[in-house]
């Protein structure tokens, strides 16, 4: 995250400012998932994460038509530094909940 995107993640949508969750998802994550069999997102090194960023970036994958099975197979979320473990758990929660929303629709 810090090396390929930013040290200061922003809000949910592009209109909320630079380095939003939407920007990360559309410009970094979805292309990476399309081009590679394995994508590792290392959450360490940033100045924390707004939950809105995490929800849009990771929960938004499901809403953008990427299946849960593909996410489980290709995407690995890592927090080597224990300070970032809560954000990893949050991202996992958002992926799970977004799936439920998509299924309900």
């Amino acid at each position: 995250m810090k090396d390929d995107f930013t040290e200061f993640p922003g809000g949910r949508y592009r209109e909320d400012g630079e380095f939003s969750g939407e920007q990360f998802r559309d410009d970094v994550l979805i292309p990476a998932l399309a081009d590679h069999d394995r994508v590792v997102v290392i959450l360490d090194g940033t100045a924390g994460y707004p939950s809105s960023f995490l929800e849009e970036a990771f929960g938004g994958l499901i809403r953008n038509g990427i299946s849960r099975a593909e996410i489980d197979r290709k995407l690995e979320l890592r927090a080597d530094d224990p300070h970032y473990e809560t954000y990893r758990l949050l991202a996992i929660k958002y992926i799970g909940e977004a799936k439920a929303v998509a299924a309900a629709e």
Partner: protein
Amino acid sequence: MSEFLKLTAGAFFGVIVGLLVQWWKSHREELRILCDESCRTVTEAADIASKYWLSDGAADDSKPNEARLLALQTRLDGYRVLLNQLFGGGKAIDSALVEFYDVLTGGLFKSAKRAIDSDRAQAAHAKASIVILSIRNTFYDRVSFSRSFLRLLEWALPYRRPDTQAGKAEEAIYLCAFFRSLSLGACYTLPQYGTDHLSNLGR
């Protein structure tokens, strides 16, 4: 055994027990301070979150409060690491923090078009109280002698704590009886002290 050896052994035993008690007291104090600091930070974050979500995205203090909330989240990340190091695996704290962060900085956080969200303002304190409860509960689990003993039992034997109040009361009675029998056992193994103690009990 000569008198000198008895005295030396007694003094040595006293020193060891004293050191253990001092270690336990300082450890408990360290944990208590950390818990107090963590809970204060949680309350502070909930207060700021309430203010933030009770004003819309165009409010003057919106940006400063966003920075404060993110800073407090980062501070809580540090406390969480310390709590986990001292308490060992705090799953309850982790899951409570996840829900708390979701309310603090979720939704349309950082959006200028954000409307007032009174539900989120209210939920901030509800989720904060769950975090505080889980921190305090973990603290008492670690520093209370009786709970430490029960944890040891759970670890060593196929024993699990009862869930009901009646079950817990029954457990407390068994524990009292157990410790009573232990103390009486100690009296018999230390004959001189035991004789005095038992005669005192009989008075």
